[in-house]
């Protein structure tokens, strides 16, 4: 009996540990370091309809407890992800994975999502709604409940796979966003994406990041993530995937007590390429420490508990 087995959206996972989008590439390169088949699942690098180079360098700024990134969704575009990246991944990973989709208009998200309908190696779509809505004035999709609901509805209408809506923490009331996604028909919520942050270079007196601000992630955001996982998992019925600053097995347990059905590990993969492997190996010990038989017993069953 596998004590770590978890269930997400009707799918059995070996464990609830999933590398977060943007911190694990398209997965296959990590198979040079360890057998990635031990992972619960994988969330792939944010993919857009057309190829994108992303932002100029510098794209990275270190912070006392994490980092700021402004990659700008660099990716080869959906077509090439399907033809090249997924083919490479399939050779080293036996299960289907989660595709993460970014966009700058409703049409971007809809068209990109459709492209993955018939791709066997994808079992779920995660919508990154932290991107600016170019046609809607540049404000992020994920900061307005009406937009979230409408976008979720539109994608859900064309998508044949489970839909995960990934929420941005850069809002006043995260519950409103979670409820909007649920009302729009989302099957699951994941959170948190990065917090908008900035660092200034003391020598140049200017922002380090080329586009000035970027997304803050890593251990410093963990308490914010826990609070948001807690609040959202208690106001929607759909499952919540928790992430934000998780670095070890005890923090995985904390996120699950907060209400996460599974967790994603982001920045820690960049600091320690073996992070997910270590967490998976450490989890049984942590379960023992708190006399938990199976991790599935930790998962919340309903919104009111």
């Amino acid at each position, binding site marked *: 009996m596998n004590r770590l087995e978890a269930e997400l959206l009707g799918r059995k996972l070996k464990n609830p540990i999933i590398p977060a989008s943007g911190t694990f590439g398209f997965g296959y390169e990590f198979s040079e370091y360890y057998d990635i088949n031990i992972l619960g699942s994988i969330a792939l690098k944010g993919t857009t309809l057309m190829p994108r180079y992303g932002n100029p360098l510098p794209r990275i700024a270190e912070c006392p407890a994490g*980092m700021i990134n402004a990659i700008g969704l660099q990716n080869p575009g959906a077509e090439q992800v399907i033809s090249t990246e997924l083919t490479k991944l399939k050779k080293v990973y036996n299960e289907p994975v989660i595709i993460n989709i970014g966009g700058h208009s409703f049409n971007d998200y809809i068209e990109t999502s459709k492209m993955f309908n018939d791709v066997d190696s994808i079992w779920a779509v995660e919508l990154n709604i932290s991107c600016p809505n170019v046609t809607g004035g540049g404000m992020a999709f994920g900061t307005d409940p009406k937009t979230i609901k409408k976008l979720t509805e539109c994608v859900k209408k064309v998508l044949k796979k489970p839909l995960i809506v990934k929420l941005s923490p850069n809002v006043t009331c995260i519950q409103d966003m979670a409820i909007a996604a649920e009302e729009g028909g989302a099957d699951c919520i994941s959170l948190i994406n990065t917090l908008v942050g900035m660092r200034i270079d003391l020598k140049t007196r200017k922002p380090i990041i080329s586009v000035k601000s970027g997304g803050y992630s890593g251990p410093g955001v963990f308490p914010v993530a826990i609070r948001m996982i807690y609040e959202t998992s208690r106001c929607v019925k759909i499952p919540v995937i928790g992430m934000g600053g998780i670095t070890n097995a005890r923090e995985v347990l904390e996120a699950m007590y907060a209400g996460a059905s599974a967790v994603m590990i982001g920045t820690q*993969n960049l600091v*320690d390429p073996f992070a997910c492997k270590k967490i998976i190996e450490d989890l049984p010990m942590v379960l023992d420490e708190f006399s938990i038989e199976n991790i599935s017993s930790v998962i919340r069953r309903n919104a009111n508990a």
Partner: protein
Amino acid sequence: MKNVFLVVEQNIQLTHDFYKLVLRGDCAGNMAGMFVNIKLDGFSLRRPFGIADSDDHTITLLYKVVGGATKYMTSLMAGAIIDVLTCLGNGFDLNQGRKPLLIGGGTGIAPLYKLAKQLNEKKPDIILGFRSARDVCLTDEFSQFGKLHITTDDGSLGIKGTVVSYLISKKLDYDYYYACGPIVMLQALTKLTQNGEVSLEARFGCGFGACMGCSIKTVTGYKRVCKEGPVFSAGEVIFSE
């Protein structure tokens, strides 16, 4: 890439702000031009450093104190154990050229040390550029491997000027160059001549290809400094203005 724990064997000051750190442990497979990425207590991200020298059991780094982590490194005592990712990136192509030229500016001299040692038989010319006399170091060591030319920005030692201005003024006999240094130096150099390879730096998130934090434009598409680089052929890199 390998994740190893290495023991500090030596940490010595070479100039007012330049240090040599010798690490011992499983160090096999580190070629000239590759780099290591080291985890230091109290710093969120790892710090990348070029391999200045290595054999199966040791790695030598040459580092300049520029900020928090490099300051902290000066306090590392013999016996300290550090978490290091080794064998990162792609090194220099040693099989190019009959008469190589090595060009290093500032901390860019670090990866050229091992390279010079390996190209010893081809008797390379080596131009090292420094800001000022007080920054100049390792001249005896480099002289063993080839003909050394020193430049300083203020002319306080060697020839006044930059490595590129020196290269323009002198007619050196070479058919292939290897260069590492500040981006302005590499940009000026590649404008002048593209018959060689350059080692680049970028602010890294991971240093092993996972985050796309270090992608640059090249004539053959986007490449990661940490994974496809840090060494690129000189004509390949598209420097942004």
